[in-house]
């Protein structure tokens, strides 16, 4: 009984960390720009697929491959910022229009990846060992556990940047009101650019670490985006930490439903739950900050 529950909680934490990472990256961009980046999951895909390129095709050592994956993610994020976000913002496009723009960006990234890597799933070599590790009576592996570490690591880094640096104060100010922030001498476009780059790097690294477990394929981005988006909505899109907590909540719910019920109905059940939460708390479970901002 205790063993089963412990396994379910560990699995919930692992899966929740993946969803939480995507929700965190979605929310960081949203906090600064009020735009949901529908291309965010594609950065996970890019991380996984380019890890195949650097680790397998070019046989680079993993630290070098990691840097290369980050570079690829950042370059594509800059493309998204300069190619879609800035032109639309400068033409005073509504946030909804910009979101559709990011969706178009997602399709372009997917299409380009399809042309480069084709439709077949690819093997991503694990950075850490897949050999079983015993944690008391629980068994996991280093690659899986690294996802939890990565999630809490990025959570701490994001908190530090946002709440312990002057730059973070600028990011938060831009999120509250970009025009006032601009009047205060904050270069809003640069701030939003930073969030695109930071989120892309986070997702790219996540892709490199998830790849050995999920396998890499060019259509993996959309699945990840949906889960990350669900998590962000459940937790509260306006706060990166609430969105990340939403990821953990969904991971836990999925695991408990799989353990004590069936996974077949987990997704519809989670959507019903999100709906119920949003009826009671329209800005998400932990969306007080967003509610106050409005």
């Amino acid at each position: 009984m205790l063993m089963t529950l412990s396994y379910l909680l560990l699995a919930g934490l692992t899966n929740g960390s993946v969803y939480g990472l995507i929700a965190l990256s979605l929310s960081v961009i949203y906090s600064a720009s009020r735009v949901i980046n529908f291309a965010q999951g594609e950065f996970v895909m890019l991380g996984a697929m380019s890890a195949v390129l650097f680790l397998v095709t070019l046989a680079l050592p993993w630290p070098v491959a990691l840097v290369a994956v980050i570079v690829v993610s950042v370059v594509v994020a800059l493309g998204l910022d300069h190619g879609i976000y800035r032109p639309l913002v400068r033409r005073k496009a509504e946030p909804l229009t910009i979101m559709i723009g990011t969706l178009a960006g997602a399709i372009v990234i997917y299409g380009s990846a399809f042309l480069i890597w084709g439709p077949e799933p690819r093997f991503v070599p694990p950075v850490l060992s897949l050999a079983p590790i015993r944690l008391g009576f629980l068994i996991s592996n280093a690659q899986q556990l690294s996802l939890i570490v990565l999630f809490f690591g990025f959570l701490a880094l994001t908190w530090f940047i946002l709440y312990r640096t002057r730059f973070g104060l600028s990011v938060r100010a831009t999120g509250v009101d970009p025009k006032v922030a601009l009047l205060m001498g904050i270069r809003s476009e640069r701030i939003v650019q930073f969030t695109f780059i930071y989120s892309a790097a986070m997702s790219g690294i996540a892709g490199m670490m998830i790849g050995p477990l999920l396998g890499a394929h060019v259509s993996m981005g959309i699945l990840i985006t949906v889960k990350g988006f669900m998590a962000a909505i459940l937790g509260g899109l306006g706060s990166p930490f609430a969105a990340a907590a939403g990821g953990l909540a969904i991971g836990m719910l999925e695991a408990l439903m799989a353990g004590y019920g069936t996974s077949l109905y987990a997704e519809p059940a989670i959507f019903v739950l999100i709906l119920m939460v949003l009826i009671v708390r329209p800005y998400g479970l932990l969306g007080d900050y967003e509610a106050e901002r409005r």
Partner: protein
Amino acid sequence: MPKMKRSAAGLAAILAMTAGVAAAEPLDLVVCAVDDRSGSAADTGIESLNALHMVLDPVNAAGGINGQDIRIVEYDSKTDPQLAANFGTRCAEDDNALLIIGGSPSAVANSLVTVANQNKIPLWILAAASPELTDDAQYQFRFGPKVTQDSIAVADALAAQGIKKVGIINNSVPFGISGAASAIEALEPKGIEITTQQTYDVAATDVSPQIINLMQSEPEVVLVYPYPADGARVIRTIRQMGMTQPVIMPRVGAMKAFRELAADAGNGVMIPSSVDPSREDVEKFFDEYAEKFGELALSPSPAQGHDAGMLLTQVLKDAAVQEKIQAGDLQGARDAIVEATGRLGNFNGLQGQKDVAYNFAAGHHGPPDTGFFVFIEVAGNGKELVGADISKLAK
């Protein structure tokens, strides 16, 4: 008026003579190969076409059939049912093909079935697994087994080994759900208890909740219906959590992508296969294939292409078919091919157990329901597929 009548009679005579001349012209032996040679199912289409050429090229080199070469018109359907339908129609209407061979993904095969029935042209389906493709079939025949036949083979093997308890784990997409459903349908009548059926999301990084339930249900054998990437994750978690039960993974277990992703965890995974690696003729054929096209793990697609080629040469030599071909009667030739396929289609090909024949007779139009499968298993850390000893299931 009499002048007009004379003109009309003269025109009719000319038309009749022209028609007579055209009818006397024998038909070209044109066969369309519409299949995926790019896209997600490219391997199946390329491998079966290679094997088709391995059979037909020597026939043509030796003078063809009654002095005529068999000409293959190739179309790449790119896993696009609409494109496949367009190519199929072109085959029937513009290329004047005698028959169409192809359709490896079920969606592509399904669109070709519509073309075949609308244009009354025979269709020989290769790898597609959907059971409905040959239900109440008139013009279409299949070389690849239905997915339900895999389940029958698994149920027969488990019952023969005295297995009483089976656990099933499948992904939540249609392939996983329908695969598990067909397995339950085949296992329960044999008195085999399903200890649990676990379903997981293909995007879940950690499937241990499902594996815990699977483990606690204490099955003797585990049946898995995944896609390649999540299949690797499931088998790795099964082994990581110390489950030592035999694992059967229909179809996906043989796929290169699964074997690569699962690596050493995939060793020992069993797959019901329509190709028997212990047959000498199968081994010889795959050696020849490797010489011409490069190394290939045991796969049903080349065997299906080979068997289609073998039957094609027999059907085109058939007297009733030749009569219509020589008379230039295209629809007559197509109808004769349908009839000859049913009549000559009980033959031993490279698929199936030794001495087990296809059954293309009316009402069946495909591989037999029993005796067609053997079991193979993954070996060499995913690099090989070898014959499996199914008595291991009982241990």
